[in-house]
């Protein structure tokens, strides 16, 4: 005989424990990262922004502005490199939003959504991929920088601290990218928006020139935005100087950005994909 039930379906579901959830969340994110990494050799143009572009920036700034800009206490190339590092990591971080917007425009997203996988993994996989791209970009730039006269003399501890801050900033910024990606309709719109955001941040900062010569209103902005703090801290670390308060401020900015944009990005992603 069939059993008649009032409320359809089972009343309880033995969901996974928090520990399992975390474990599988990490595993899913790494699987998604693996997928994104496999895309790279098949669309090599995706690497232009972390290879050719930083090389062009280093070379152009070194030889175009290098002669005209004098900075106190060190050569211009030594001054410049930290700025280029941070700028490039921001460009690298932008692809998270673009890639995600692209995924959302394709059928594959329905496959992911029909699987018993962590929802956040699609997003986290993207930001982890950008972290790796950021590391690659940093190595490329370091090589080019050394070739054109970059002579850093920070110690190992300084380099580790500086690069830690750099990558953390990039990681945090990729969640901003994801947020933009979830708000925009197309990958192209994400790209356009991010360019508009990155250029003022990089030029109105201490990335390429000291902020002292800027008019006071611009200087107020430049000296109190996350990019300047990160650039200043990284520059001090790689040049073997003390970063002073810049290190803490850079750390605080990155953590602050993460705290705001991580939940925002995940929520927006869930919303976009929950038809």
């Amino acid at each position: 005989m069939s059993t008649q039930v009032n409320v359809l379906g089972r009343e309880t579901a033995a969901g996974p424990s928090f520990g399992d959830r975390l474990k599988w969340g990490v595993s899913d994110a790494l699987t998604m990262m693996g997928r994104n990494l496999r895309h790279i050799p098949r669309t090599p143009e995706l690497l232009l922004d972390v290879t050719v572009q930083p090389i062009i920036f280093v070379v152009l700034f070194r030889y175009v502005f290098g002669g005209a800009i004098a900075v106190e206490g060190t050569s211009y190339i030594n001054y410049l490199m930290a700025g280029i590092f941070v700028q490039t990591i921001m460009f690298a971080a932008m692809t998270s939003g673009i890639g995600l917007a692209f995924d959302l425009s394709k059928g594959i997203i329905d496959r992911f959504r029909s699987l018993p996988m962590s929802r956040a993994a699609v997003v986290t996989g993207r930001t982890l991929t950008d972290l790796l791209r950021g590391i690659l970009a940093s190595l490329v730039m370091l090589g080019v920088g050394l070739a054109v006269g970059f002579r850093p003399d920070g110690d190992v501890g300084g380099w580790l601290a500086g690069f830690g801050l750099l990558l953390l900033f990039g990681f945090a910024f990729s969640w901003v990218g994801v947020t933009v990606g979830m708000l925009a309709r197309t990958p192209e719109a994400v790209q356009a928006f991010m360019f508009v955001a990155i250029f003022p941040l990089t030029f109105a900062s201490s990335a390429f020139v000291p902020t002292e010569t800027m008019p006071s209103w611009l200087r107020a902005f430049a000296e109190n935005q996350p990019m300047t703090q990160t650039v200043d801290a990284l520059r001090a670390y790689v040049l073997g100087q003390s970063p002073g308060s810049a290190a803490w401020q850079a750390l605080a900015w990155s953590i602050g950005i993460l705290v705001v944009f991580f939940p925002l990005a995940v929520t927006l992603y869930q919303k976009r994909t929950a038809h």
Partner: protein
Amino acid sequence: MTATSAIVAEGLEKRFGATQALRGLDFTVPEGTIVAVLGPNGAGKTTAVRILTTLTKPDAGQAVVAGYDVVRYPEEVRQRVGLAGQYAALDELLTGQENLEMIGRLYHLPRQVARRRAQELLERFDLVEAGSRIVKGYSGGMRRRLDLAASLVAAPPILFLDEPTTGLDPRSRLSMWDLIAELVAGGTTLLLTTQYLEEADRLADDIVVIDHGRVIARGTAAELKARVGGEHLEVIVSVGSELPVAARVLSGFGVGAVRMDTESRRISVPVTATQGLLTRVVRALDEEGVQVDEAILNRPTLDDVFLALTGRTATVETENGERTEDNPNRMEAA
């Protein structure tokens, strides 16, 4: 509803802007059976499948799949169902093997198991050679097969196939039918949607006919065909005076009254056992000296079913109402 229903839909409603896609959809799929949801374009088939597979939330009504409410326990449902949607959901830049392996990993199969499972499925779906190439270059038929394979990675007890052969050429369609029939021979519950009565007839135990988001009929293929008058044998003879002889011959093959139209020299009779029928009929007519201009077996189509059930043909809802996602995989033939 019985305890052995793998899928229960009760009063499902879904609206997209001004379009009411589902208006109180009710049906059940008993465990281990194959049910075809048959309906014209825009009837709400995809919407129903997306709700049942947790991709879309219903506005009203309830759906229970594998014993779990799809809205309250989507994770539990996802673990127990496989889905091959109307448009292949594959990663274009990954190879066939990589796609299947990735999905296996996302089902939390150990790496080695996921790899072996991927190879197994590629073999079963005749994709071994293509398995090392990226999906971008696949034909429509290959994509469909890979997508079907993808839905089977975790060997789910319940399978959803949304228009599995739409857009395939006749040869790919036939081989897809064989594949599906083979798949479910092992006792998998299958819900498939289709616009072709022939496909539903061929694959399903039971057919649910839907129109404008509502069930308008349910039954076996034979029952539905009976409602539309079933299959008809039609013969046009060369010489009008031979009509009576021909009618006598045909009545021996038919299961109902023979109808004759002297003006068009056409005779028609309802038939059931259609295997090799035409050959036998033409031979029998030839033995009686009747010359035949034309002999056809008229199979009822979705249109005939609709005409019988609703008094109108299955009209296409709205062409531009179709989901407009940028989907390069739609409608390519192998």
